[in-house]
């Protein structure tokens, strides 16, 4: 029941927004997300991180009710360490994302916050679904609010850009739907339950088809290199809260799904295609970093750097090692937090100066030292400086990649160097130095401090004590590895 409540609460509470005056929308939305965060904290407290040895005993707070009985579709949800991590990410980031909009007035705010909360419900739904069909519904449902958020409140050229984004992601998911239906027809008892899907022993050819149908959907969502072209435009044109939802949480849907659906169902195809995927990732990392170096606008730069980061995360997963998995989990959380911080920094600069062109900025440090320091720490975290949350994840990912092949590591390691180049240069040009045109730049307001200080706190805390994440996800990781190696045994 707890899991179902986690999904349902934001959506149904959001309906309240329409009963209250529009001026209250922001406060009510914040209250709802805070309540949800407290609720999540309570669920963490109840969560048992001890060892279990099967999928369904790993899962906790399971709820399984018939939904569409005649089709074998259930409302089947549960939490394991991996899901829990994603739920934590979603529910703790949302209050911050709402807070970043505190100084902003949107037209039709009730609809805006309603869509945001609806998105939260859908995201939690994706992360806890144990029924493939239910998972697909939530997967698609998450797309609709963000589509409207960008379409209605977005910037220039939003119609074309949102459209490309929608069609692109829908293409991926429809192929995934076809694969899900096909898998369903293979199950002995005609269900969409994840346990039945895991129990399938597909022959290698079938695995290849299923793998690509799923992987395409995720590669578009994450996005990996040839499928990334929707991303920078969408991030740039979206209102900032939308970019945060997209990059902080939504793209993790793709990474999470690789763990949850691709690896255990098609392990042979995964190991057959590891090199191809790694090449996609590594080329993407270098390409995106290279483009990022040339960017002159902060939001676009953060968008491209995000492609480089998620490329590395995906590469770590496909090494199929415990280090890689753990690194990916930590880095998912770290990237989510950092990218929200970065987009908020861009938002603050945009509000104060009316531009995010790096060249037009500068000299902010003297005027707003607190802001400059916060931005600096977030920058350090995203270039993976030791003692920040970015370091542990990136280190584990690179070391797992090194175990797999040092060639890939050499190239992927460029991300760290190039990342330092563009992030530090952007910081230097936009914040430090002298700029006679920059005369007024108010330091952080209280609501802004309430966002940036906790983010900085999280960055440092998880930089020093990452153990919590290891503990939370370790059982899921071990189980996944066991499941994969079990599947590998039959003839390939």
């Amino acid at each position, binding site marked *: 029941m707890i899991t179902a409540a986690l999904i349902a609460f934001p959506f149904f509470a959001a309906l309240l927004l329409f009963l209250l005056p529009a001026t209250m929308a922001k406060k009510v939305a914040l209250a709802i997300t805070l309540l949800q965060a407290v609720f999540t904290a309570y669920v963490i407290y109840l969560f048992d991180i001890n060892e279990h040895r099967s999928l369904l005993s790993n899962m906790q707070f399971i709820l399984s009710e018939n*939904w569409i009985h005649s089709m074998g579709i259930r409302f089947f949800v549960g939490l394991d360490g991996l899901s829990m991590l994603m739920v934590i990410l979603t529910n703790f980031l949302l209050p911050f994302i709402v807070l970043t909009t505190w100084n902003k007035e949107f037209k039709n705010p009730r609809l805006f916050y309603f869509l945001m909360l609806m998105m939260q419900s859908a995201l939690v739904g994706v992360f806890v679904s144990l029924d493939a069909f239910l998972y697909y519904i939530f997967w698609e449902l998450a797309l609709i609010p963000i589509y*409207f958020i960008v379409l209605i409140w977005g910037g220039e050229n939003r119609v074309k850009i949102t*459209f490309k984004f929608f069609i692109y992601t829908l293409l991926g998911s429809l192929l995934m739907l076809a694969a899900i239906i096909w898998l369903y*027809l293979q199950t002995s008892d005609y269900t969409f339950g994840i346990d039945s899907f895991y129990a399938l022993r597909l022959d290698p050819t079938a695995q290849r088809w299923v793998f690509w149908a799923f992987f395409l959907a995720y590669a578009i969502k994450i996005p990996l290199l040839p499928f990334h072209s929707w991303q920078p435009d969408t991030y740039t044109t979206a209102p900032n809260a939308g970019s945060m939802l997209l990059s902080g949480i939504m793209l993790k849907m793709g990474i999470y799904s690789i763990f949850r659906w691709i690896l255990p169902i098609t392990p042979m195809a995964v190991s057959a295609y590891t090199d191809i995927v790694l090449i996609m990732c590594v080329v993407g990392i270098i390409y995106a970093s290279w483009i990022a170096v040339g960017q002159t606008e902060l939001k676009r730069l953060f968008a491209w750097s995000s492609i480089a980061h998620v490329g590395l995360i995906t590469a770590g997963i496909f090494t199929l090692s415990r280090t890689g998995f753990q690194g990916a989990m930590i880095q998912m959380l770290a990237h989510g937090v950092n990218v929200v911080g970065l987009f908020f920094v861009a938002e603050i600069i945009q509000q104060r100066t009316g531009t995010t062109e790096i060249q037009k900025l500068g000299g902010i440090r003297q005027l707003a030292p607190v802001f400059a320091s916060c931005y600096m720490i977030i920058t350090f975290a995203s270039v993976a400086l030791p003692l920040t949350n970015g370091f542990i994840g990136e280190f584990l990912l690179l070391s797992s990649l090194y175990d797999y092949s040092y060639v890939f590591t050499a190239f992927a390691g460029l991300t760290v160097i190039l990342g330092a180049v563009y992030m530090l240069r952007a910081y230097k040009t936009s914040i430090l130095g002298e700029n006679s045109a920059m005369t007024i730049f108010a330091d952080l307001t209280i609501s802004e401090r309430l966002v940036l200080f906790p983010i900085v706190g999280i960055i440092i805390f998880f930089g020093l004590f990452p153990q919590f994440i290891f503990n939370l996800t370790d059982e899921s990781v071990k189980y996944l590895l066991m499941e994969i190696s079990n599947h590998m045994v039959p003839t390939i």
Partner: protein
Amino acid sequence: MTTLVLLSLLGFLILFLGAFDQKKLILPSAVLGLIAAFFTNALDWGTNRLWYSMMLYDNYAISFIGLMILTVIFILLIASYQFRNEGSHIADIYALMIFVLVGALVMTSYSNLVMLFIGIEILSIALYILVGSRRMNLSSNEASLKYFLMGAFASGFLLFGITLVYGVTGSFDLAAISDYANGTENLPIIFNTGLILILIGFAFKIGAVPFHFWTPDVYQGAPTLITAFMATVVKTAGIAAFYRLFDTCFSGIDGVWYNVLWVISIATILLGNISAIMQNEAKRMLAWSSVAHAGYLLLPVLALNELSSSSIFYYTAAYSIASVTAFGVLIAISQFNNDLQIDQYKGLAKNNPFLTFALVISMFSLAGIPPLAGFFGKYFVFLTAMESNLNIAVIIAIAGSLIGVYYYFRPVIFAFNNDGQEMERIKTSWVFNFVLAICIGITLLLGIFPDIISALPGI
């Protein structure tokens, strides 16, 4: 049978009410009569009664008849809004619509090819007049003539096919034809020719490629209400009759018709969707999209397994309700704008939140976005097709529905895209709003609890 008699009498009653100038009574009596018909129809559930070996009221027929009666009720109630200021011949239009329904009823419950033909003719002849019911309007007249000529051809093909099948089997009865078809080793060429001719006749009626040419012109020329009526009730009746014939008689024999139908359905999906992209006129866009939907509906006919009938029913239900909503919004907007370009949805969202919501729900449902009814319709159709290993067809159909998203989203984008323009608040009657609200409710409900329909036994 009670339903059939009731509906026929209702048609005459309305004609008489019109003749004696009792205009106020027309709509209430039509709606009440239809509601009564809905219940008498529902009472037959599970009886499987065969009438004089001509008509079989099985659950399949009863569910389709119920759906069509419900759609007509919605359309009539929306019509009350459009016709409130209009001319004197409302009674004729309502009566003709009910006669179309009588024809549709016969088409879904026939168990004899003669009844099929009679049903199609009752439906078509009333429809020819309805399409031309804007007597002073040139395009309406053109549409009527076109539809008549094309319809006559289609009937000709169908009749020719029926004759050939009769010539081989010696019977019009579906059971007898089925026995012959399944019991004969090498079917004579004449039988197969007849089968293909019947298939062509049906393809004409439901507007499948390459027999679709009449659809856009006729849909555009006809009064919007009649267009809505054709896109929903007539299409439902056509596909229901189509499936009934092929399921009962020709399921055992494959080969000839299978390949033809495969090509037809794929071509229909692709051409319908691609052509719909290029339309700027809202009604033409919906017309082409209805061609595409006919293509999706042919997939379960092709698959012909135990899921087919329920997936066809679910799809037509979702599609009909969403279409009624879409056409309702279109009618409300076109009150103020004479022509119906898609960009005239511009700025709708600003002052008309309810109409915008209805537009979004209907377009998303037609495009197949979860968790709306239209998505489950597509899902069931794909599932049915994949169960019969029509994987390639499903992949193409998926590509088609991706194209569909493009044109279904255009009105929505325009509605929210209010740079410069704002549409003034559109006044609508409470009956109209009520119907739209019910349709939205059904679309959501069918999406969240698809079991309501898919669990119906014996469809």
